[in-house]
């Protein structure tokens, strides 16, 4: 996978926008989630991640990538987040402290985790509408199945069926990722 990124970056250096979009599509969401983890604010996380991509594209011919493209992106977003925290509030200073104390391997794991979470999110988006809606009400909004049933005017049984349908689809489509996911989660 990394090999491919490196080849992709070769094309980006030559100004290939398709290749750049491909890099963006692969890493934008995980990087936003990673930045969100540091900043606790998705708006800033998105802005900062976009800034990083713009900067990278503009300096594409001079950038030296020593490790991997992914690590480079990850480090750039991390530094940008820390700078942002420093520049905003004094109260945020402790967050910077905490964030910069993370070891490199912790950090690697958190990026891996963000990537996997982004993949799961992608699959959730693809669920059938009704099924996705109910699943998200439970998982993202933390609502009780009873409350969901009352709001939608359906039985609890139906709510449970829809949620279990969502889980089954995710399990089926993400099965190949499970070993990686288990590894990252237990390591965290």
């Amino acid at each position, binding site marked *: *996978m990394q*090999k*491919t990124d490196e*080849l*992709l970056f070769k*094309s980006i250096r030559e*100004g290939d*926008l*398709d*290749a750049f*979009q*491909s890099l*963006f*599509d*692969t890493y*934008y*969401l995980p990087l*936003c*989630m990673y930045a*969100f983890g540091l900043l606790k604010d*998705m708006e800033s*996380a*998105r802005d900062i991640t*976009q800034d990083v*991509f*713009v900067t990278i*594209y*503009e300096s594409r011919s001079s950038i030296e990538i020593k490790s991997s493209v992914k690590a480079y992106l990850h480090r750039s977003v991390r530094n940008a987040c820390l700078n942002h925290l420093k520049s905003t509030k004094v109260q945020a200073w402790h967050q910077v402290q905490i964030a910069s104390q993370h070891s490199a391997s912790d950090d690697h794991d958190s990026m891996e985790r963000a990537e996997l*979470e982004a*993949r*799961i*999110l*992608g*699959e*959730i*988006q*693809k669920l059938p*509408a*009704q099924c996705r809606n109910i699943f*998200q009400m*439970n*998982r*993202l909004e*933390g609502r*009780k199945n*009873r409350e969901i049933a009352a709001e939608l005017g359906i039985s609890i049984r139906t709510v*449970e*069926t829809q*949620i*279990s349908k969502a*889980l*089954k689809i*995710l*399990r089926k*489509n993400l*099965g190949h990722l*499970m070993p990686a*996911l*288990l590894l990252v*989660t237990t390591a965290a």
Partner: protein
Amino acid sequence: MSDSSSQPVDTELLVRYFSEETTTRENNVIEQWLNANDQNKKEFNALKLLWEVSSKAKGASSVDVKNDWQKVKNRIGTAPEMRSMPPNTTGKGSVFSRLIKVAAVVTLIVAAYLTWPVLSDFTSTEMITITALTDTSTVILSDGSKIVLNKNSRLIYPEQFDGTTRTVTLKGEAFFDVVGDPSRPFLITSGQATTEVVGTSFSVNAGIKNKVLVTVVTGKVLLYSEGNQEKKLSLVPGEQGLLKNGLQLSKTVNEDINFLSWKTGTLIFQNTSIDEVIRDLNKYYNKSLKISSSALKSCTLTATFKQQSFEDVLTELQLVLPIQVQNNERNIILTGVGCK
């Protein structure tokens, strides 16, 4: 109930359990099932993990990758993408011929239920598998050839090409931009179909049951089945080759100007019948749009949609055609009295 080890997992019960809404009796059932064997435990852990991780995606659901890409693209303010289709102006033919000039593209749509061929040809070099799930993905091969994979597609290729051919395996749909090398033909295997190119660009889709469809824009492509390599269908720009059930080869003229829309993000309709419009929209947006009555079949559409959201497209449809959109649980229905 006595032998819980042989029972399949009751996901609904597990959902109640994860939601902390089970009774003590139900907890016991789960515990029994869980302790029955390791396979059950594995299954339980996998589902629990999905359950937990899916609640963490909270902030991310507000991230619109497509929209944010547009923002980034505007900021870097470069020239338009080389391969994006020009906005439509005149007739079908001119869009098509311009596309040929701009792109030098051969599209190859391969559709088949595929069993993975044994890749014994290139054991000496490491095989790489790329799977594009929710979005397209670009891959550059060691010879410099560029491949754009459509969603839900997979490509297997060697890290290095050695030997007398360059062979890759595709499941799903992809666009190939092959670097010319007459001494090493480029072969794409998809199920029983083999597509051979000497050097050009093209796109492959292996998604429809028992069908392999090859559409050529420029260059020359040979299509043949694994079972009969003597009979090769030669395809030139504008032509489309079809391999059915791994045996029947046939050739037609490509009339679908939207065959690359998954890659360009552009859908072009020119006096196009509503049936075809719906077919293309459903394919591009992965929806199931339907018309309520045959009266609507009298409607045609002329419009270009460039990287627009499905909702925008529906709004636009309602503005330009005398139709209304109705959402029900499963389908989106277009209603109206027709255009006559």
